[in-house]
């Protein structure tokens, strides 16, 4: 029996297809004291590199996985424990954890199931995590896709069904976006909600940026269906927007052109890995994407070429007090200014220090906590 004061630090599941992560570097050493949210280790997968933040406070008593080592998802990589826990107990826990790491990835690990809904003649793809409970639907922003939520979807899925979709024009959904309007995107989201059988209420919407405006529009159509609305750096709450970023993203043709543009999304530009840029380029090069991005650019940016065209005020007003609204914003957002959080009436506001326009990627643990709170506040 291991001492239940021992808290394992496990390999996170970043994205539904992740099975294995490699610890590239330990930020902490044995003996260090950590607080919740402190960086523990740099981890990379075949898709992305990120930093694992501690979910708990405590003392790092044992590092289980060495730097450079591949660890299956949920494998224990370190142990936190108060000083009173004995070395023998810790060593026993290490041995148990090493056995899991050395066994490697189980063969039967299931591929995530990506589902397709036919909505308005378009194929909309979405994938879910979790078995039962309330439905959480995650809606990405301009140029993103359901993998934007890779740090959040699995962690949010304890006791819930968490879905992420690819909006029209994005990811693996049909690239045609018609007029590119928020309404058209909202139709797709409603269609997905119908497809997953979430018609009876108990739906929590989380939308980022353009996806925030879409989430607000969906909620406004039928507020009783929605139990909570979380907006991360949403569009539609002010005139100011970094139109150069949006245009640059739409127009970039090469890695060299795209990399500095993508850097504007993050407070910490080192997060812009070659893989991230390559994945975005691969998306941008799919037939139809250029047209879709141009159409959506017209939705986001007004005729003057510099200010926002979307206004979500009416949508929020339509919610009345039926749906609790939470707004999350990175303090270092260079795409839409965080001050616009003040323009969301009646919302609970969470400003994430040190995050840019992608707080759910840069400060996933804090964003997760904010979403959990929002869900908890729901009627």
């Amino acid at each position, binding site marked *: 029996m291991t001492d239940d004061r021992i808290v394992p630090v496990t390999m996170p599941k970043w994205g539904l297809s992740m099975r294995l992560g490699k610890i590239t570097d330990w930020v902490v050493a044995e003996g260090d004291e950590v607080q919740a949210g402190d960086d523990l280790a740099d981890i990379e997968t075949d898709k992305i590199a990120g930093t694992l933040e501690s979910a708990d406070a405590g003392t790092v008593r044992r590092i289980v996985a060495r730097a450079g080592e591949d660890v299956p998802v949920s494998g224990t990589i370190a142990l936190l424990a108060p000083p009173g826990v004995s070395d023998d107990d810790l060593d026993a826990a290490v041995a148990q954890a090493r056995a899991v790491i050395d066994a490697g990835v189980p063969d039967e690990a299931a591929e995530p199931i990506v589902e397709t809904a036919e909505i308005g003649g378009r194929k909309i793809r979405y994938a879910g995590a979790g078995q039962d409970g309330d439905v959480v639907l995650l809606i990405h922003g301009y140029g993103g896709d359901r993998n934007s939520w890779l740090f959040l979807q699995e962690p949010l899925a304890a006791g819930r069904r968490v879905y992420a979709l690819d909006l029209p024009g994005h990811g*693996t959904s049909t690239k045609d976006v018609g007029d590119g309007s928020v309404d058209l995107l909202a139709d797709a989201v409603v269609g997905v909600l119908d497809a997953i059988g979430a018609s009876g209420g108990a739906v929590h919407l989380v939308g980022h940026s353009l996806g925030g405006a879409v989430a607000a529009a969906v909620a406004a159509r039928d507020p009783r269906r929605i139990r909570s609305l979380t907006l991360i750096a949403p569009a539609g709450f002010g005139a100011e927007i970094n139109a150069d970023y949006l245009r640059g993203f739409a127009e970039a043709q*090469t890695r060299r052109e795209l990399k500095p543009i993508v850097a504007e999304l993050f407070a910490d530009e080192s997060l812009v890995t*070659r893989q991230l840029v390559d994945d975005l380029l691969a998306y941008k090069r*799919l037939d139809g994407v250029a047209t879709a991005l141009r159409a959506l650019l017209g939705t986001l940016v007004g005729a003057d070429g510099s200010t926002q065209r979307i206004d979500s005020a009416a949508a929020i007003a339509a919610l009345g007090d039926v749906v609790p609204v939470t707004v999350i914003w990175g303090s270092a957002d260079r795409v839409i200014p965080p001050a616009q959080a003040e323009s969301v009436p009646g919302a609970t506001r969470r400003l994430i220090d040190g995050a840019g326009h992608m707080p759910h990627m840069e400060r996933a643990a804090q964003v997760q906590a904010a979403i959990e709170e929002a869900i908890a506040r729901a009627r």
Partner: protein
Amino acid sequence: MARTITYREALNEALVQEMERDESVIVLGEDNAGGEGAPGDHDAWGGVLGVTKGLYDRFPGRVLDTPISESAFIGAAIGAATAGMRPVAELMFVDFMGVCFDQIYNQAAKFRYMFGGKAVTPVVIRTMYGAGLRAAAQHSQCLYPLFTHIPGLKVVLPATPYDAKGLMTQAIRDNDPVLFFEHKALYDLTGPVPEESYALPFGEANVVREGGDVTIVTMGRMVHTSLEAAEQLAAGGVQCEIVDLRTTSPLDEDTVLESVEGTGRLVVVDEANPRCSMATDISALVARKAFGSLRAPIEMVTAPHTPVPFSGALEDLYIPDAQRVVNAVKAVAEYAR
């Protein structure tokens, strides 16, 4: 949606999607359907290694078997390209260029310049290259340096299924004559490939591995040999940056130079014979434009200056392998003035 498919399937999918998108795309070559005029199946082969399988029935009249007559049908593809078609012709093995080279380098390559910019020749010539199948001296050569030498031609060498599809799509949509080199040892290689169409631009090298110690510039099958070497080297603490040129014409000089400026050390890995090759070309480029960054002499890992031998015992020695790449990288990494 990206699935895992083979290099062969990726090429086939690019052909199918482009033929569906644009009816001026036609496919022709020896045995591209196979069985024409014979009593058995009419799509018996679908290309000698199956790349064009299934196209014949799907696109009636647009997949043409040809006599073994490379000058005539490669020339016909070029002529058809000047007349509004987008032909994809297959020169079964690049070794056969000797029986049709005039049409490629004197005709297709020169029309635009020679005719004062008035010609557009959007032809793709697919061809198999490379050693490793015990196919001996006349069915195993690389020869892409010869085509790279000719102004007016574009030369493409995909290393992965993803690149194979994207570069084939671009080759078909491109308005210049394109030589598309498919390594015969890569057809069964699998990798993620989106279902949708996409075009990868020419002249954009791909950094397939980042590393700060030594730059490896390579292409085609040698990308995989270099990756294997880089894994071994990483265990010993040497981090290689691998640049896959993807196209040798146009050439992404910037990516090569940027990488060498970062590492100061260059190994070029090229399956072709060493003289007047991509190995010498990249070496000259770096020596000329990044001399100040170099901290060690440039190394080349190539085939020897011999024809490709038949016997497996010899062919295995002929083809550059990971150990030779490891040795070259170590030599430049450990070089001290």
